[in-house]
């Protein structure tokens, strides 16, 4: 018995580390490739020539590339993501100030999608071919196809502009948890809406397949209660395909979160990145992108851990 499959997880961890290193290399390469004078690119047109020279020396931009790479690596490993060239703050500070908002939004969206999608999918599986099932099929395709920022804008239009039900912009920080929660609703829904239908369909398909499996027939042959069969047993079997796809979809979710934040004027990585791009604040941009990649990769690793917790056959490999 290998518990949670230590060998499997170590393998995945190693793969993850390799990918993260590669991503860092890619990001580093991007900043190196920046066309034109590196200092001008990093500091923008505002800096004076003396400052630029001083900056170059300080940042070691005149060093050969391999040296810079190693320095970059070292910095990242110690959590130093560089310095914001505009404000002078540490990039890591800037990012950690806004990261919680993005993470909360993404987590809320995932939570919503799962909490609504899974029961919906289970229900549709018990009534295949019914009109509810067909409507669900239709709507879910429609919703997952539409980009989340478009949904965000439409929700904005309907609920805030026309109906004036929910507050629109910002996070309501400082107004208490209730207010923050209210402002989280629309963005989270915008992100989640496509996924609710998608997950429901995935769960439905997986459930239908699982319920037709011989081992479910064994459970029925032994008279196990229907409720137990569906929720204690079949659901676990059926969770596997949706989990895999959710893992892949987190990237889209993160990308969507960035845009949805901008639509609703929420602080978060989206705003940070956009502002950074507009003023050519490369360290911030680099740091933010790196953090997003880390989030994505960490989320996928989490999904893999869940996988191996659920399916003992995976732990072998």
């Amino acid at each position: 018995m290998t518990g949670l499959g230590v060998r499997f997880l170590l393998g995945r961890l190693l793969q993850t580390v390799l990918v993260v290193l590669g991503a860092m290399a890619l990001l580093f390469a991007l900043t190196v490739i920046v066309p034109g004078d590196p200092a001008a690119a990093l500091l923008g047109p505002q800096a004076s020539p003396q400052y630029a020279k001083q900056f170059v020396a300080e940042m070691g931009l005149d060093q050969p590339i391999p040296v810079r790479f190693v320095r970059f690596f070292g910095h990242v490993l110690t959590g130093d993501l560089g310095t914001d060239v505009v404000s002078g703050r540490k990039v890591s500070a800037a990012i950690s100030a806004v990261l919680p908002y993005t993470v909360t939004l993404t987590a809320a969206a995932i939570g919503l999608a799962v909490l609504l999608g899974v029961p919906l999918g289970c229900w549709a599986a018990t009534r295949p071919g019914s009109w509810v099932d067909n409507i669900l099929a239709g709507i879910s395709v429609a919703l997952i196809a539409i980009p989340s920022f478009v949904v965000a804008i439409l929700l904005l239009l309907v609920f805030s502009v026309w109906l004036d039900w929910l507050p629109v912009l910002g996070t309501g920080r400082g107004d208490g948890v209730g207010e923050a929660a209210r402002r989280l609703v629309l963005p989270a829904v915008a992100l989640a809406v496509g996924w609710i239908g998608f997950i429901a369909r995935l769960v439905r398909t997986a459930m239908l397949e699982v319920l037709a499996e011989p081992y479910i027939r064994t459970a029925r042959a032994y008279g196990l209660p229907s409720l137990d069969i569906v929720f204690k047993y079949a659901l676990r079997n059926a969770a596997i395909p949706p989990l895999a796809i959710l893992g892949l979809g987190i990237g889209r979710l993160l990308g969507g979160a960035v845009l949805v934040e901008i639509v609703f004027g929420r602080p978060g990585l989206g705003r940070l990145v956009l502002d950074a791009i507009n003023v050519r604040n490369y360290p911030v941009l680099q740091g933010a992108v790196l953090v997003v990649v880390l989030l994505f990769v960490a989320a996928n690793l989490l999904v893999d851990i869940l996988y191996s917790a659920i399916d003992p056959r995976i732990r072998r490999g």
Partner: protein
Amino acid sequence: MARILQTPAGALGTALVALVAIAALFAPWIAPYDPDQLAVLDRFAGLSPAHWLGTDQLGRDLLSRLLHGATVAMAVSASAIAIALVAGTLLGVAAAALGGWGERAILVLFDIVAAFPSLVLALAVVAVFGPGNGHLVGIVAITLVPQFGRVARAQVLTLQSLPFLEAERILGASPWRILRYHLLPNIAGPLIVLASMEVPSVITIEAGLSFIGLGVRPPLASWGTLIYDGYSYLSDSTLPVLVSSLALALATLGFTLFGEALRDAADPRAR
């Protein structure tokens, strides 16, 4: 093709795709106005016989802008997917052919690119190289390469075990010949299906980037740009944002339905 039209979803998807394609191809001829023509006195016009979908904040006819937006969306999709298809296929086939470390290196490369959410990678690259139409197409293509590459590689691996390739090799056929006449026709199928299924993603990324101003450059206007314009002037009129959102939504919906119907039609198991 007939099979695609059999399901209501497939038929709807095909209709929408056809609509977008026609708009994209014939925009300069069927658009009632020049999309860049200003008529500031006529801004935020509602639905009217003169302006079927109203006007934007500078009085430009929205219908015309939307039609040209279709052209932009299709142009970007077609080029990005074409590039990704070629590059991905070459890399995928190479990976399968090389085996060992070469293959592993290519796969790790795929993983690294795939570790970036598409939009975020696009943002990073655009930030570095500056916005530009060519850049846009290039970045989007890069984000797609891993998927095409993996599918191509998987297809080749399945085929490699088939004896007819071995026979060709023994007969002395050059690698190029094998690639062109034997491999490509056989792996083309799934790749084409994948290509059609990627169109909605490309449209979405392009629209998203244009929305934040990092997509296509003026005077070209993509639906994303139009949505942003409408969003900025929500207090003045809700019509522009509505119609441009609708256009984007219908296009992505149409291509998604079409792509899925294509995949189902091509699936031998479904027959």
